[in-house]
């Protein structure tokens, strides 16, 4: 059996501890849910203890070596039966009422909720911000980021910010689901359907999210980060994002060579821009994750790699992503995908350099902001992109 178990690669050991839990009470959703489920838990304990005690007492008392008398042949007890039906009925009615009350408090999402679109596809997320239109000077469309979602922390004062976030989930291919347990319940992302659901947190920090409906080979590799920022920080980041225009590479730099491949491909085929959008450039592809702020992001492959591991895998990723992420639909750039060019290592390094240059200015660096705002409970990913 030993050979069957190649152990974890040590390269992964860098990852920081994430504390996922549905019992995270910083979320209004989870508080409401807890106040409902605590009742179920109380009944559960009573029933479990009561019934299992009755079971073990019965077995202890009436096993044949203790009870040698010929048993009485009774067929039932109507009063007892009524009680045993009646008590569960009462409990069920109570739990139903609690469910209805919680549903009424949690639904529906309100107009004052801050909207975010979560667009799922095999195997990544794009997060769009319907209220955040890109400045006309910078480009078109909505502020969009792949695999890293931003949200403001809740505020009890409506003037100071929204109390909760209305996530509208949808999908471009199969069914996925948006689930960030620390922030609230999940919602399925269904093709051609838009379903809105609420999440919230009172605490700035970085929260783990996952796809939660089997969606193919890399279902397990369809993760995302939710970065919750204080409202003022959030506004600053959004302003920076709206104004963001991807930096123009200096003439003759590797970035410029990378940009050329990104937008035109090599030998006239395989442009990255056909599938990827970069705000403020002609690249406006919609089939893949948005790369506008790639240089600011600290994850790669929909959360498969974080921090330093991003650097270790980016080159291979561009070359042949399916080799390191099962089922990745991005074409291979090693010549094995028909109609796509084989990029040399130099080409790939140039594209890497271009991607790394796609950085927000300091006031938009949400990782730096969240580290500053919540140094203790953030577990933020260290920046590790060499040379930037």
């Amino acid at each position, binding site marked *: 059996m030993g050979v*069957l178990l*190649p*152990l*974890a690669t040590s390269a*992964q*050991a860098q*990852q*920081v*501890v*994430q*504390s*996922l839990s*549905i019992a995270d009470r910083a979320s209004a*959703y989870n508080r409401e*849910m807890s106040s409902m489920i605590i009742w179920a*838990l109380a009944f*559960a304990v009573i029933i*479990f203890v009561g*019934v*299992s005690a009755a*079971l073990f007492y*019965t*077995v202890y008392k*009436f096993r*044949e070596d203790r*009870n*040698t008398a010929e*048993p*009485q*042949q*009774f*067929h*039932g007890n109507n009063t007892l*039966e009524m009680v*045993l039906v009646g008590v*569960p009925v009462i409990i*069920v009615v109570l*739990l139903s009422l609690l*469910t*209805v009350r919680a*549903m009424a408090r949690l639904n529906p999402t309100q107009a004052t909720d801050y909207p975010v679109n979560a667009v799922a596809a095999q195997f990544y997320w794009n997060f769009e911000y319907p209220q955040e239109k890109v400045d006309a000077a910078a480009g078109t469309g909505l502020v969009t980021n792949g695999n890293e979602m931003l949200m403001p922390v809740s505020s009890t004062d409506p003037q100071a910010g929204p109390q909760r976030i209305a996530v509208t989930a949808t999908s471009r*291919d*199969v*069914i996925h*689901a948006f*689930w960030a*347990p620390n922030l*609230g*319940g*999940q*919602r399925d992302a*269904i*093709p*051609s*359907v838009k379903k*809105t659901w609420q999440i919230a947190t009172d605490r700035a920090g970085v929260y783990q999210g996952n796809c*939660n*409906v089997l969606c*193919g*080979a890399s279902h397990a590799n369809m993760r995302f980060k939710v970065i919750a920022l204080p409202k003022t920080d959030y506004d600053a980041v959004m302003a920076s994002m709206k104004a963001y225009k991807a930096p123009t590479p200096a003439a003759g730099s590797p970035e410029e060579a990378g940009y050329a491949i990104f937008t035109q491909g090599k030998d006239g085929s395989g442009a990255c821009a056909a599938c990827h959008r970069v705000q403020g450039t002609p690249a406006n592809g919609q089939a893949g994750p948005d790369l506008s702020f790639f240089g600011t992001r600290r994850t790669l492959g929909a959360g498969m790699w974080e921090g330093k591991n991003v650097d270790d895998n980016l080159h291979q990723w561009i070359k042949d992503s399916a080799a390191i992420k099962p089922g990745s639909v991005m074409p291979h750039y090693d010549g094995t995908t028909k109609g796509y060019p084989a990029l040399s290592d130099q080409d790939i390094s140039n594209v890497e350099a271009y991607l790394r240059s796609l950085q927000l200015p300091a006031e938009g660096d949400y990782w730096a902001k969240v580290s500053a705002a919540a140094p203790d409970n953030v577990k933020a990913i260290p920046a590790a992109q060499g040379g930037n």
Partner: protein
Amino acid sequence: MAIQVPQQKSGLGAVLWDMMTTTDHKKIGWMYILVSIFGFGFAGIMAVLIRLQLMVPNNHLLVGNLYNQVLTMHAAVMIFFFLIPIGLFGFGNYFVPLQLGVRDVALPRLNNFAVWLFFFSMLLILTGVFHGGLPGVGWTFYYPLSVDANQTGVVVFMVAVILNGIASLLGSANFAATIINMRAPGMSMWKMPIFTWSIFATSILQLLSLGGLTAAALVTYLDLKLGLTMFNPGIGGVPALFQQFFWFYSHPAVYVMLLPYLGIGAEIASTMARKPLFGYRVMVYSILAIVLVSMIVWLHHMFALGLPDTWQIAFAVATLVVAVPTGVKIFNLLGTLWGGRITMRTPTYWLIGFIFNFLIGGITGVTLGMIPFDYQVTMSYYVVAHFHNVMMFGTAFLAMGGLYYWWPKMTGRFLSEKLGMAHFWLFMIGSWMTFLPQYILGLLGMPRRYYTYPAGNYAWSELNFISTVGALILLVGGVVWIWNMLQSLKRPISAGPNPWGGFTLEWTTESPTPAYDFAHDFPKTFPTERPLYDWEKSGMKLIPVNVKDIHLPQSTVWPFATALSLLFMGYGLSFGWFNWNWSPTPATAPNHLASILLWLSVPAFLYSLFKWAGTPEYDTPVEHHTLTKYGNGFMGMAWFIISEVGLFGVLLAGYIYLKVIGAAAAPLERPALALAALNTLILVSSSFVVHRAEQDLHTHRYSRGRLGLLITLVLGMLFMIFQIFEFSKFGMESNWTQNLWQSCFFIIVGLHGLHIIIGGVGVALAYYQHMTGKIDRTNHGSLAPASLYWHLVDVVWLLIVALFYAWG
């Protein structure tokens, strides 16, 4: 297989031939049990592989689609080839006739057909290995993942699910007919043993709900093969509709995997405590209540879809309500044990283990009904833990209990108590270690169906490691169990007729049970559901009969041959098609082979079926005694028809929904009402004709009856000709992959066309029996069921005319 006929040692070929031809409900029960044990072993090994992959973070044993295939096979085989069949069809076939005091099921040859079709459906899924891979879409095969280009084995999985469903329905209809028509004289329904009641209720539940799964699989199959769809959002279809179809069956299926085992548990409790059941009637009512309520809770699998709140709440309340009758069952098991003199043998331990474990599983199930909590943990490991809690260390414990309890009856030998206790405790501890940590994993945010997880999520690594160790303990337990069975078969037959002191009729016959079941008849008074206790008290005796006077149905190979031809047809429908052109390039060669098999399977199927119909059930004329005035064939068909109504009901409900929301608008050019009206006339007349032909048989006007059947067939053919014309025209006028209404039309009206063909074959069988003199004064052949089926096809047509031709 020597266990079947321990007296006669015979070669493998002879044993195989016996299995292929037998009509003996006990051998068929054994076949279900053996396939189930194999299924449990296979799926169990899949489970261990899954756990080994998840033992440590970022493991590379099973990655991506390979993991998904193992996961899918684990679930599909555990459900369709272990948990559903071993209780319902394994123990059901063996013990329902014995508990009823009869010598076979209502339709013994159909039983043989069903068990082989069941077995072949498993083989069929596995053929995916030779065609790219096994299915990896999860046993739930959600749309549109099922039609995703990177998936393998889905088509054959769909065909296998449909064939498995047919086998399951035939088996269920057979039980229902047996229970209604064939009980020992004097045994009323209210005196039936609780296990038989459970099988009856489970059969009804299967018949009512299985149409949902068939509809889901059928539409997925047609989507993959022909682009016919009801779900494709690209043309206005609704992906969530797939889940409605699927869960309409697959939630009730949970109770199909529970009720037979609750029956077994109650039998064990009563026997081992030497007491009557506590609240027998209440238990029966609870079973029936579970059947009823389980039909209206399916939506709770889909809360995270975000359907309207009122619907969610209604289904949530129904979900919570199920806890009441389920709780009653548990309390009554306790009540049965209370005050007894409990024999502490392995079956008792499995029962106690079940009650304790099921208590946890039931309670966590209630929490899942509470929607805001469900939004958090649905599809997470909390759910994984919950349903394994209910199934693996819930009902599977009672499957084991049933096996230990009835093993002496089935083999004449005991299983070792020592090994049995080792098996029990390994399963108990293994289950807790495997699944209890998974509850916590779910609360800590671990989604299900993940092939990997990163290191560093709080407690994930530790809990997953414990879970894997638990799975390895379960593996050891499984090995002990198999060893125990093999050891037992080496011991001499020593169990005697009634080793545990049971109170129901199966304990009156020898162990293992001889082919004729009982060498005696029973007294005709059944004061309670425990005849042996009552008769002993009142001094009533069994009435010996001469074994030579007992007539049993004769063996025949044709049901097997019919099932085998369906295996080839299924293979052809999965990997081939009705192609004419032949291009022997190596890359497409397997598909050509499949296409050839498909062509050949059709005549093989018809030939076997006609041979089957032409072979009399008994080699000598036998008077049939049924409790109702209806024959077994008619009774079986009447029950089976419930499932057809269910199938069309589900599909039509889906169509009506799509139409009402405006997604399925009829195209301007569509099949004319006039032709449909003509077809209605044809079909309704044929219904009258076939009815008249049946009457003629009763009044012994054979030649006129024969003519009537011929006219029915001609009318049916005329109908088909018009419909083929209409389909061809409509298919050429517009593209069904682009129009949802047209797609629905072809799926549902086409399915009805298939039913016309099936019904026509049924009438043709009766006609053939007429022609060859098989229908006479005592033997009415299969005319009654064929005629009934033909009426059904007719009624469905009227609905279709209303919904597709008349409705604008």
